[in-house]
């Protein structure tokens, strides 16, 4: 078993590394896009109660949709390959980022914002210096949930031809190659842990006040 795995790594190191790189790249891009959509959308929701009333329930519903379903539902629309996989991953990740952004912003007490205004901050300064920093812990939690979800779901993206570690896993499934399954699965788990750890580390760096 371990001999087999060692053999696999000896012969297929390039493929393996390429799969990791693809997996990481898709995931990073999806996370970036999801954050670029989710955080501004969350801010918009808080600024306009009207938007919030239909956006938040929509994304709460989207959140409970299984990732596999989203992936396959997109095939008739976008076909197969990298793009639909990316779209699916972004769709999966936006809800947790958006909903956490909204929750983080709404849980900031009114008197904090009023105090900031009373100090003579402009609206923009209040957002930058007080409101967003105070919502940051929740936003980062959303990002952390999103990144683990993305990395796990990106495995399934191989099913529609996006490549990545899922390819190794599905090949392993097809050929009854337990070594491939293990190598792929463990690497996905490791990648996921690494990403979540990095987000936590970022949080510790950005929010020193929480850890003194």
């Amino acid at each position, binding site marked *: 078993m371990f001999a087999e795995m060692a053999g696999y790594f000896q012969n297929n190191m390039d493929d393996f590394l390429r799969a990791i790189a693809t997996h990481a790249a898709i995931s990073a891009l999806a996370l970036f896009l999801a954050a670029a959509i989710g955080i501004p959308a969350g801010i918009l929701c808080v600024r306009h109660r009207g938007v919030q009333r239909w956006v938040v329930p929509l994304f709460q519903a989207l959140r409970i949709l299984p990732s596999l379903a989203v992936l396959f539902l997109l095939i008739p629309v976008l076909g197969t390959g990298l793009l639909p996989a990316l779209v699916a991953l972004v769709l999966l990740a936006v809800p947790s980022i958006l909903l956490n952004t909204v929750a983080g912003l709404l849980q900031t*007490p009114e*008197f*904090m914002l*009023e*105090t*900031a*205004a*009373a*100090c*003579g*901050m*402009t609206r923009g*300064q209040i957002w930058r*210096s*007080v409101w967003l*920093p*105070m919502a*940051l812990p929740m936003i980062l939690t959303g990002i952390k949930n999103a990144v683990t979800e993305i990395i796990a779901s990106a495995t399934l993206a191989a099913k529609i031809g996006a490549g990545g570690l899922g390819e190794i896993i599905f090949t392993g499934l097809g050929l009854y190659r337990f070594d491939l399954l293990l190598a792929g699965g463990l690497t996905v788990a490791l990648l996921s842990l690494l990403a979540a750890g990095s987000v936590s580390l970022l949080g510790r760096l950005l*929010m*020193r*006040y929480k850890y*003194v």
Partner: protein
Amino acid sequence: MHAIEFCDVSKKFHGSAQNAVDHVSFAAEEGEFITILGSSGCGKTTLLKLVNRLYEPDAGSILLFGEDIADADVTNLRRRIGYVIQQIGLFPHMTVAANIAVVPELLHWEKERISARTDELLTLVGLPPEEYRSRYPGQLSGGQQQRIGLARALAADPKLMLLDEPFGAVDPITRAKLQEELLQIHGGLGKTFLFVTHDIEEAFRLGNRVIIMNAGKILQFDTPEQIIKHPADEFVVSMMRSVQEKERFWRELL
């Protein structure tokens, strides 16, 4: 010229039947320590927030040193007025020094001037700068946090200070100490203080003049001695009586 003047000011909240602040007129001079006394919900906070324009009046005008605040740029106005609240509202993600420096930063003071001012204020409120400047609010006791809140409000040397029940949430011993220190700080700076409280002893101890409010209106505005000698109406009389009863209670006990 008055430091602050209210001219027939009214404020009504949306969906409310009566005015939260109802045809209020009064004037205070520079250097005065005015306390505003009244029971919860009588409009004290609303009155204070009209001064730094967190609320806009529905009628009447408010003058600061002769200038109608409605004509002032609102952020500039606020940077010239210190504001302290019961919930303190220190920014948890900023150090003590950064909290104190908020308004000076907004005013683009130079770095050296800001750090010198921060240390000066920490000393003024009785917290050694070396020990406290790089702490976060979460590492301070309630009384210390309120000291920082006070220092932040004083940072840009405003001529007017608004204090909304600043000691409402601290224990009685700390409270008495903070009251004493606040009096000293006021005496040394020549600023005008508007200090809101629902505690009658606090109001009479701190204020050189006391505004007594009920249901959005000013019932009486006078020195503590005059209010005690000539209470304006039945409400003020009953307030005085409650203090006497409390005193009798303690005398019998001790």
